[in-house]
């Protein structure tokens, strides 16, 4: 049934590429669950790899962290709203998009409002807002859906329960991110590096700030089922940090980080399949991909150290007068 049943790490890629070749040459095939997983994860990695550099440059990653928490409240609110108006489902794309918009708006409004009007220091404001909104989200989910597992699943993700619909949504998001980036690359770049200069040029920096918030919130939603709201943060930061070890040009970073993310997704899915066939261990695929990204970062640092020549024994450096 599943062509990947009981196959190892290398075999996975052999089968995958031959099936991909078949698919491209027009042989009709039905997508296997592993392919759906890989596709969804790769789409998430693509969106995250494109957004991540901007978020890190604008020092907004902790903000992305709060977004990834508050998204739960956003989705619950959108679900309550949609189900009462037109009977929307919890995980239908329209509800999810509405939820991500609501989450981005709520989080931004509260966090910045506390800093501006209540004179709170920024780190405390971020921490207070996301934990409170997330707590509210968990309570609402528990009360309305009567499902304890949903909130755990939201955090941990469950890549094994992915469906073709999830893949469609994730690739739609990736397409959205890609097109926004292509259309507004210059404006995003200028407003990320120098907000004042951007406003002097007439670029509405606040608009792009919110656009970035909305996109990252949408990506969190897209990743909601695949990797969970927390692990998506590794997708956002990890590939960028790795790419940053070797390049400092934004345009190059924007190529490397999605590529690394997609590469890690492939490795992760294959590894998780390998663990299942070889040891009978059902590992969480999202988690394995995250570990792969972490591993790639580690390798990157190792390579960089070798390049700098720091790994050769160098006794003088450690001896410092105290």
């Amino acid at each position: 049934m599943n062509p990947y049943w009981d196959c190892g790490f290398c075999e996975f890629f052999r089968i995958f590429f031959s099936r991909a070749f078949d698919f491209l040459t027009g042989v009709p095939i039905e997508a296997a669950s592993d392919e759906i997983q890989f596709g969804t994860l790769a789409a998430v990695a693509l969106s995250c790899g494109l957004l991540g550099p901007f978020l890190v440059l604008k020092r907004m990653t902790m903000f992305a962290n709060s977004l990834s928490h508050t998204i739960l409240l956003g989705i619950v609110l959108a679900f309550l709203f949609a189900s009462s108006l037109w009977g929307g489902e919890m995980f239908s794309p329209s509800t999810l998009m509405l939820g991500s918009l609501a989450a981005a708006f709520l989080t931004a409004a509260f966090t910045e409002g506390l800093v501006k009007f209540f004179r709170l220091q920024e780190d405390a404001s971020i921490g207070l807002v996301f934990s409170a909104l997330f707590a509210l989200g968990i309570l609402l989910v528990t009360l309305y859906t009567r499902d304890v597992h949903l909130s755990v699943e939201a955090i941990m993700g469950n890549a094994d329960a992915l469906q073709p619909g999830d893949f469609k949504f994730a690739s739609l998001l990736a397409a959205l991110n890609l097109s926004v980036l292509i259309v507004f690359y210059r404006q995003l770049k200028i407003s990320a590096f120098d907000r004042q200069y951007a406003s002097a040029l007439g670029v509405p920096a606040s608009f792009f700030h919110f656009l970035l918030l909305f996109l990252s919130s949408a990506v969190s939603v897209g990743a909601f089922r695949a990797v969970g709201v927390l692990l998506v943060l590794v997708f956002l930061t990890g590939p960028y940090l790795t790419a940053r070890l070797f390049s400092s040009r934004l345009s190059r970073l924007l190529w490397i980080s999605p590529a690394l993310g997609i590469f890690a997704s492939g490795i992760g899915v294959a590894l998780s399949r390998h663990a299942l066939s070889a040891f009978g261990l059902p590992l969480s695929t999202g988690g394995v991909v995250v570990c792969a990204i972490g591993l790639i970062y580690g390798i990157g640092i190792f390579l960089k150290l070798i390049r700098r020549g720091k790994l050769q024994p160098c006794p003088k450096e450690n001896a410092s007068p105290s």
Partner: protein
Amino acid sequence: MSLLDFFTDPVLRGPTWGTLFMCIASSLMGGVLFLKRRCLLGESLSHAAYPGIVAGVSLFALLFPEHDESAFFGMLAGAFATSFLGFKAIEWMEKKEKVRSDAALCFVLALFFGIGTVAASAMQSSLPSWRTKIHALMFGQAATMSDFHIALYAMLTSAVALFLFFGFRHLQAVLFDSDYAKTAGLPVRWIDWAIFWLFLFALILGIRSVGIVLMSGMAIAPAIAARQFTDRLQSFFCLSALFGALSGLAGNIISVMGTIALSKSGERLTLPTGPSIILIGAAIALLSLLFAPKRGWAFRICRIAAFRFRCLQENVLKAMWKKESYLFNEFQEIHRVVPLMLHAILWRLKQGGWIVKAKEQYILTADGRRKAASIVRLHRLWELYLASELGVSHEKIHLNAEEMEHILTPDIEERLTRLLANPKVDPHSQPIPERSFL
């Protein structure tokens, strides 16, 4: 079920006391981190504890399958190990790789959590019952705490309290002026070390009742609320502990009551403790941000409104000093304010005995004349000071004086008078009214 039952009942008292102690400890240590502006460190460290919890529990559950308590210690040991590792990783990324602080925090948080997720999925088949127990730690489950936990949390809380009590002076010096502390020969490294380890202790023990995901909020919210009420470090810590205790108690009670209410309607659903505690804590913080005296938003808004109102009153008086009587419409032409506001101002001035209304005309009383003269005097004194002492050009002095006339105190007026040798004429050759005593 009365409130007292929560403290004495053998089943209920475990969660109540446990949560209480844990909340006090974490809000005290959270206060320290709040003052160091490293609130978000707690978020990363509590998530970094997750793989350690999973690994520790699996290790002990496999080695000693009979002893539940040993698995608890395994959990603590593992959590410490990985949290510490996470902290070192963050430090290393910030210092050696020059990664921005927020990116390092975020990356380590999620990476460690991912490793934990993989480990948890690996134990799914071998230790299914432990896996559900670990899942409960995600959002906190105070319900299963026993007297043993009470003792543990009480010990921790007293350790934190003793550290703050005896190390208070040193802590104060390190928090507010670490350079001074270094030159004064205080053991800054040891204090930082103690802060870090106590914070980690509080964080990891707190995970039991509040949960991994929300633990950082528990450390932040009481500190935010406490900061609103005081500028003194002692009272800051006391209030922070008080707010922490309050949210812990109320959150626990809500969670227990909610679970009972849900079970009455026939659902097997537990209301997790963590979110309830956090929501109470956040509500306290929000209310303090809004209504605390002095620093609260409402208070600040009122003070600003009162000042604006006083300025408008003084402007009206000043205008009346220049022309004998005014009609209501004439006021409206000069001062562009809402008619209702103008009515309020005039009413207030009448109450103060500064103006009277004769037919349709408003006229200054003797008191009002003196008051208005003193405002005009302040205005012109300040103009003269700006022009003669600071050398500001004549076109620019009027607007500045328009604002300063409301702010200058009698004491400053006295000094200005002496400095300018009791002048009679201002830079625009207008007479400066004599000083009058109201």
